[in-house]
């Protein structure tokens, strides 16, 4: 993955618009967060391979970036996106890596379902 190039990422997001796509969306501060620091309130969310279609996708220039997808009846968004790539299967993988290189958020878009 490379550090986000906003214009390039915007083009890639546009490429998946108005198509049926599978989404992976994840936020996490790690299963051990409250073990290492009992003051941490541990929360996160994960969906994988939900099929949807967005009419408009936008990456905002603030760093780390926010990426939002407008659906016919709703929304998907992720904040904290720092890195991206199109992998060898043509999937758009976006991730927010914290200062230690740990994934804090992921938003991935694919025309084929992701593995299990």
């Amino acid at each position, binding site marked *: 993955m490379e550090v986000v190039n906003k214009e390039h990422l915007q083009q890639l997001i546009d490429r998946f618009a108005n198509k049926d796509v599978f989404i*992976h969306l994840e936020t996490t501060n*790690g299963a*051990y967060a409250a073990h290492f620091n009992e003051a941490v309130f541990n929360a996160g969310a994960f969906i994988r391979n939900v099929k949807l279609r967005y009419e408009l996708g936008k990456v905002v220039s603030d760093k780390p970036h926010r990426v939002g997808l407008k659906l016919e009846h709703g929304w998907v968004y992720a904040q904290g996106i720092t890195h991206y790539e199109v*992998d060898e299967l043509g*999937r758009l993988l976006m*991730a927010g890596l914290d200062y*230690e290189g*740990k994934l804090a958020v*992921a938003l991935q878009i694919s025309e084929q379902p*992701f593995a299990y």
Partner: protein
Amino acid sequence: MFTDERQVLVVFPHPDDEAFSCAGVIRQMTKRNIPVTYACLTLGEMGRNLGNPPFATRESLPEIRRKELQQAAEAMGIQDLRMMGLRDKTIEFEDDEKMVKLVADLIDELNPSLMITFLPGFSVHPDHEATARAVVEAVRRMPEETRPTILAVGFANDTVEKMGNPEVVVDISDVKMDKLAALQAHASQTAWMIAESEKREESADELSNNWLTSEAFYVIKH
């Protein structure tokens, strides 16, 4: 210790769980030609450490960790490594009976005299807890005289306070380098940690004290 085991069955959810908790004991047993099977339920697909700059993506991490697991198994002398194909962070949401059956089927096939897993209630990660529950329940359902001994790893902050000191403490200094090799094999998970500890080791000797000289277990009583 454990010189006359017939067959050992190790069940953990994540590649690297075994390296931290019992790689030394496993190596001591494989050195004595005791057959050890390691059933690793997931490939740690949801591991957070991707590096910055990143060395992996959410989608490429599982293959990296599969190879690390195979390399770690080699370092521990494990000849029977089973990757069970579940997904990281989802074990507790699987059907509980399916999980018990997964373990029971392994027990039926292998007839272990000793099992190693986590200690229910004191293993911090939801996958660890769900794995330990399935193992304990599968064994509890067996006729008493056929049950394997279960060695259980607990590391929650309140483990010693609530459970007392572990009943079994094994000196593993003779296989220290093999355990280090197993930890190093899981580089995607341990590289930064080992680097940190090596820095500290000059003064505190922390890595060797914590991981490389002894391993501690509770014995599960039914």
